[in-house]
């Protein structure tokens, strides 16, 4: 499996590359009043409306704009768009298109083995699925399922 990595405030996170539809420069975001502060707003990508999740805010950091840090966007595959291999691996995708706003995208790595280790016990982050190693480095895999459940579906805590 390949993982796509990105940076949020000097920390590198990863998601399976098969979940990525496209990487692009930040697009203008239409704010949606009254929604979860972790939701940046909506963007229009080639006619499709996607919801933008601000990853910095998800980790309790000031937004890119507030921090004066550049950002990039990752458009995730929808459930319908997942390729066979992804389905076989049991990867989760939401039905609607989601865009993640991250500080910057980083290289794509080949995983040494498909194992995702559980996160260390002391890590109490909600959106973390586990830790993988690639290219002699460790990366934290984000759990899209939990992210969607908490932020988009408004579920406080979801057990996997």
């Amino acid at each position, binding site marked *: 499996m390949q993982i796509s990595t990105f940076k949020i405030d000097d920390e590198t996170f990863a998601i399976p590359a098969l979940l990525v539809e496209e*990487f*692009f*420069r930040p697009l203008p975001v239409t704010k949606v009043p009254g929604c979860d502060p972790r939701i940046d707003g909506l963007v229009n990508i080639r006619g499709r409306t996607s919801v933008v999740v601000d990853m910095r805010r998800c980790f309790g950091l000031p937004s890119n704009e507030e921090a004066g840090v550049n950002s990039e966007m990752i458009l995730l595959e929808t459930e319908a768009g997942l390729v066979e291999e992804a389905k076989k691996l049991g990867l989760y995708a939401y039905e609607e298109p989601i865009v993640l706003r991250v500080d910057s995208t980083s290289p794509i790595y080949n995983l040494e083995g498909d194992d995702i280790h559980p996160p260390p016990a002391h890590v109490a982050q909600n959106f973390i699925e586990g830790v993988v190693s690639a290219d002699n480095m460790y990366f934290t895999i984000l759990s899209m399922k939990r992210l969607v459940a908490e932020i988009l579906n408004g579920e406080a805590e979801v057990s996997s």
Partner: protein
Amino acid sequence: MIAEVKQENKFSIFNSLITNDHREFYEKIINELIGISPICNQGKCTAAAISESPTEQEQITDLMTRVETFAEELQDGTKNLFDQFYLAKEDFCRSIYCTTAYIKINLIDRTLLERTCDVRWWAMESAFVECLEKTSKSSRSLDRLLNELGEYLDAAKAAFEVPTLETNWTMKDISKFVDDVMAFSKRKLDLMFRNHIFEEFKGKVEMLSEQLGKGKNQEATVKMLQKVIKNLTDVQEQVSIACSRLEDIRRSYTLYCDLVIATPDGIVVANANPEMRSNVLGSTVKSEAWHERATDGNSTLPYVIEMTHDSSIHQGNSLVFSSAVRSIETPSATPIGVLGAVFDLEDESRIILDDYMPQTEDHETQDGWYSFFTDCKGIIVGSSDGSIIATGEQAHLPRGHRKLKPGESTSSYANIEGQDSAIFSAKSDGYLDFPGLEWSSHLVVPTRDIFASESNFQITGISNEELMRSKLIPEINKDTYVKVQDDKQSIKLISLNGIVFASKLGKRGVALGPVFEQITETGDFATSKMEDLLREMAVGELRLNLKTLETFSKQAIDLIDRNLFERSAAIRWWASDQYFWKCLMEPTDENLIAAGNRLRDINSSYSMYRNLVLANRMGRIVAASTPELIPDIKDARVADHLWFTQATRSKSSCDYAVQDVGRTDLERGDRTSLIYSGAVRQNGSRNGEIVGVLGSLFDWVTESGKILKTCLPKDKNGKRIHGCVAFYANRDLEVIETTDGGLVPLHTIPDLPTEHRELKEGESTSGVLRMGDHVYIIGSSRSKGYREYQGLGWSAHILRPLF
């Protein structure tokens, strides 16, 4: 000597000025980028091989085309970047080196202006007027006396023709003595001005007188001889007084080779340099321009400056300042003589020309760097290296450098002595009311030094990102930096999307993997190289800016040192003025008034003094040029003032004392002063007993403020750059004058980096300074004094904000 090289306004990579490092650098980037095209073709072929779907094929082909277009753009970008890099460097060097050339000619102009004031002032010295008047009178009476003497002696000879009973003398015996004396009768000038000839003559006269005494009725002849001797002795006395005064001047102002007083007929009657005296006195300078123009009755010129070659008063090239000496009673009448001052141009040029030149470890100017002055005809009048660019010869300058207007500067590339060089020239525009001599200053810098690589230069105190954002970096570079960052991102995103795309093709996509990897690698390589180049540019920009600040801080300290040298010279000379010692030795009302008037006269000619004060031995002020400035002048006591006590401890009239900038009782309020002082000695003699002290209160605030302002950095259009600060600090690093009291307040000790605090004499340095929220670059120079003026351990600092 010099072959002009055509100047190109664009730097192609084939330009000979591009360094080998950069050429290699460029080749690498271009090679990599060229390599992109086959990779993309391979990608397109792979697309056809791995997918039957036209949509997928199109997607891949589209990606590849984007990459190709992008690589082409990058190639152009790289070319432009080099062009930009070299143009920026060229531009900056032009500005900094043209400024340096200008600073040099400006230093000369400033010193020449002082000389024009000197020579006008000295021409009014009463000792010279008296000397000229008396020698002229003596000369006329000598003509008559020597004539008459001839007759007397002829008569004496005749008288001796008849041997008398009393003596055994014959005409033959006496005629030898008479002839000996008569041999001098046509050598009036020698007798008047050549001491050894006069002494010889005196001997002969004595011998003749003795012989005549043995004859009869020769008393009248002997008396006549005595008259001649008396007259000549008087002349010698006057000459010696004048010479001694001239010598006083030369000892106070060390930048003159000699000073002379000449009659309107061009006979030199007095000079300052004792070593030259026997050659110069009595010689004629009538045909020399400096004399001719100064005595021209129709002329109202207050002074004359002439470049002379092999004058009778000085060998070799020299610059002579002259001014007419006029009778005190009838100042409007024809001049009674001329004062000529031979400025030590060679020495002064050497000091200025050697300055601002990079040195080797053995303190020699680096090879290939030359600095020289040319006159209005393009003749070299001073050179930092006479064996290569010889004075007196026509300078081989490119055309544009020969036709400069006053104050204008230019630069071009030329081959000088087989060395590819850049030559920077600036023409004098005079200084204040001194129009200048239409001279130009030229600086030759090896091209390799202008375009030398900056990549090894370590910057401290500032990060690359900060530097890139700073005001120092031209907008065009900032734009390029942003563009490169943008390109870098584009390549990354294209590759990432490609890889994601390939991974979704599963096994089929494996073949595309290496293509995208290669694209990522190449893109990263090219953009990071470009970033390196931009960083190098930024560092170069920073370095040149630092150097500029060093240059300006050095100019600031040099200008003040030179100014204060003049003050220290002036005080020594004035302290020997007869009005002052007469007044102190005999403080009659009349003498006190005369001394006061004299002080006022001086002060009105020299605007840079607040006040001039004369104190007696007890430390009481007896006269002042502007007494109303002093609070309680009647009770003013200066016996415990540093300037007074130090002057009273001086050993000879060559010494002066100085009290550093600070508060003084001689000024009202908080006004600070810099006080120079010289001991007034009995009868004005050089080692005489001290009878009082003359002090000059230099208008420090005004003068130093003026100088600091001229040393603030300017942009390309000559406008002062906003937010810059210049200040002087004393030995203890306390601020004594500043252009911005809000940022760098007076009397505080700014927290400067160690290298700036611990500068040695004559050294300069530069770096980054953080003050509160502000980041500055700073250039500092410490005083090295000027000639025998030691300096006061001060330093000059110039700050320029980065943001």
